[in-house]
């Protein structure tokens, strides 16, 4: 693929319909008691105001694998519960990831027809090719799961009370 193509595909958009209330989806993204129940299951810490800090912590098994205690950090840019959250987002697994720096992440929650909400995740990944690869990956491929996997798991948790297995 040409360099030009690479730079033009830096934004990734994920959209999913979830049978849940906007507040439930908002909580599932921003509250540690929910984030420990799907995806990587690490607790998050959000200071939900512009300029507030964001941190996602590793679970004990991940720490045992050599992950740092704080695996993702960033800053809240906009917080409009339960509709819109804009933040920066940086992986801290290793020096290479740190060097890629902050990306921009937007969560949008909109009420759709008949008890459904549409959750859209827009991840702007300019200058972060490794993170772009990771968040686009399938679960089985690399031992990591990207947004598709995380959001499917989130949907499953909110709709059935159980994770996908």
């Amino acid at each position, binding site marked *: *693929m040409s360099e030009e193509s690479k730079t033009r595909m830096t934004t990734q958009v994920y*959209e*999913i319909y979830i049978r849940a209330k906007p507040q439930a989806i908002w909580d599932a993204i921003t509250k540690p008691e929910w984030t420990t129940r799907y995806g990587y299951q690490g607790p998050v810490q959000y200071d939900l105001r512009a300029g507030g800090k964001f941190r996602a912590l590793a679970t004990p098994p991940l720490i045992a694998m050599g992950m740092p205690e704080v695996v993702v950090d960033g800053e809240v840019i906009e917080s409009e519960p339960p509709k819109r959250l804009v933040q920066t987002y940086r992986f801290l697994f290793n020096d290479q990831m740190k060097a890629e720096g902050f990306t921009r992440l937007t969560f949008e929650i909109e009420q*759709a*027809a008949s008890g459904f909400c549409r959750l859209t995740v*827009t991840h702007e990944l300019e200058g972060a090719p490794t993170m772009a690869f990771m968040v686009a990956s399938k679960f089985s491929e690399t031992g990591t799961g990207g947004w*598709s*996997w995380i959001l499917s798991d989130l*949907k499953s948790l909110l709709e059935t009370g159980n994770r*996908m297995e």
Partner: protein
Amino acid sequence: MQCVNDDAVFKALADPTRRFLLDLLFAQNGQSLTALESELKMTRFGVMKHLRVLENAGLIVTRWSGREKLHFLNPVPIRLIHDRWIDKFTEQQVSALTDLKMQLEGDACRKSRKRA
């Protein structure tokens, strides 16, 4: 747009032009109608119709960037179908077969994709 269901996704994927459009966006995400149209021997209106079907199935999401409407691949519905259908029916065998198919066809496949 109604909440995406499997029928809409399968129907959208049943058409070769629409699969080709998804391939184009996989190779290069966030393209405009004009860019996509230039890859197809089809009227602008025809391409728009196909894009609409893909959008209604949730397979693409559009975003405005200035005056340009950009089209982004949304892999989530395919992921959900994968979870719902592929996992259920012996994923291991399927992936062994797709691996074999890809190995056997790999070169030819890559070449034809480059041409397209």
